């Protein structure tokens, strides 16, 4: 696997978008694109060619799992690792999300200073 540089983050909340951008770009040194909905991600993802996709689970309209399913339908995105971000992480839920094809689950609220390390750990794991 190559190095992790380009991250697509799909999240509807502007507050979280802003702090995640900071955590990933300034602290983590990644190249980040943020989409505010699953629908937007479906339109924009292929052109951005992400190394990894972060999906918020609960979004209005298309939620995280259905976005994942739809992204997998696009040939260039079928193999891109995906991690979910959610405020509920009980062990059975983690198992459920992994069964859907997610590499891992990141718990919200996240610590802005540690998010980049968490993502690198998922990438390397």
């Amino acid at each position, binding site marked *: 696997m190559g190095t992790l540089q380009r991250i697509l983050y799909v999240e509807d*909340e502007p*507050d*979280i978008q*802003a*702090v995640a951008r*900071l955590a990933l770009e*300034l*602290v983590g040194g990644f190249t980040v694109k943020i989409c505010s909905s699953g629908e937007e991600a479906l339109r924009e993802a292929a052109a951005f060619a992400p190394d990894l996709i972060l999906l918020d689970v*609960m979004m*209005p309209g298309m939620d995280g799992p259905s976005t994942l399913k739809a992204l997998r339908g696009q040939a260039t995105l079928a193999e891109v690792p995906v991690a979910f*971000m*959610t*405020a*509920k992480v*009980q*062990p059975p839920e983690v198992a459920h999300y992994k069964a859907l094809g997610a590499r891992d689950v990141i718990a*919200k*609220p*996240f*610590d*802005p*200073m540690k998010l980049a390390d968490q993502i690198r750990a998922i990438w390397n794991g």
Partner: protein
Amino acid sequence: MPPDVAAQLARLRADYLTRLPGELAALRDLADRLAVGDLDRAGIGELHHRLHKLAGSGGTFGLAGLSARARALEVRAKDWLQAPAPDAATRAAFAAEVGALAAGAGEAAAASPVPAWSPSPTRPHERAAQVWLVEDDPLLGRGLKRQLESFNYQVRLFPCLADAEQVARDACPDLMILDVTLNEEGEDADTRLALLPRLRALHCSLLFISTVNDFHARVRAAQLGALGYFLKPLDVPRLVNRMEQIRNQQRAAPQRVLIVDDDRDLAEHYRLVLLGAGMEAEVLDQPEAIVERISVFRPELVLMDLHMPAFSGPDLAGVIRQHDKWTGLPIVYLSAETDLELQVAALNRGADDFLIKPLSDAQLVSAVRARVGRARQLDELVSKDSLTGLLKHASIKEAAEAETARARRIGKPVTLAMLDIDHFKTVNDSYGHAAGDLVISSLAVLLRQRLRKSDVIGRYGGEEFVAVLPECDAAHAQALLDDIRQRFAALRFSHEGREFGRTLSVGLACSAHHPDATGAELLIAADEALYAAKRGGRDQVRAAPAPTLLTP
């Protein structure tokens, strides 16, 4: 942390806190509609969604308690999405908790600085405490204001209570100092205070200053809720010490309690009672998840039912005690049990105490509060100097070592400062040890007030202190410590009518000038600079010179 990241994080947090009241108001509206039965399934869905968002965002912006409470509510709201609507009592209780969420968040936002986000080295970290000083003697008022300001209090001076009552309409101080000998319209200040509704309603901490030292005046002060009573002429350092104690209590984080009880209703009741007492409480639903739950929630006390169907309390306590870091976590059993043998058996397996059911809400709160309070005190005793509340010798040396290593790793300078009170021995000799202790604790207070939260301060020896200033270069440190030196020199102590002051000598060593030095070596360099300051006439700050390069 790079300063630009810190600044941006602080800005984002401020933005979030600005929007939060609107979000909480929207939640409260939904919850109120739920309470009166005016919320359809879609409405409940929205309520659930908003709680979920709050649970996911609060902690990222430093409001972990808010996240946890929103999470607990979210889980309950989710059940209603599929089930028939809950009964009226349940809905009302839920709405009340959503309301409490808003109240708790307001306090948290005002009171909780986020430790990891430190500002520039020139500014103290925390919001200065707001103090209202009601004093009709302008000379005394201005003098006291100036002295308190040097301890980083923000002081507003009122010549009479009526003025303060006016301002109390839309402002609230952290502390109010009232000269009770002032006389307005023929009435004493304490009589007047009792009659001023807005000031009374502030419920802010109150300190009295007075010339009258009789029992009745002191009882009167206690009845009005005064937390301190200081006689003129004022001993300002003693007053500041008391103010500092009060501030520490105000700032203390809410106590965190994990409740383990298979009776869901009862557990929920305990949770609400503890929440109502300003604590953070969570209920453990799945005993299997106890280890993860403790890691995440980090309770300061576990309240556990002795008899539960699947696992007994002592079994779970045993699991907790298998982890080294939780061997000291207080575990208290709730038990209808009066069977002495069972209790002894439970004690042998890691319990700390028993509370016998049924117990009143007040008993529960006071029992939990006392035990967590004691656990916190013990923790302080282990690492903190008892007189100053600063780190002890060994701990500050460790901090110096760790910060020096970190400075090298991140490529930012760290500066170590060694401070010594000049001619301190003569204070003990001339005025006694109590006066000496006061001088020492005053310097400790001054250091805590003027330095950042991320700076580490310790009492190194008798009258010797060490401050570790991460991400601070020599020039900044010089300015900072020189300011502290001047403020300390301006303090007047009094002992049996005799006034005195002391000065401070400081030695600095910055890692930028000693790139290969360990923490211990930097401390030695700072110590040498301190002795240069002493030899140079005391009352000054000296920096260790960069080592001169030897030419071959």
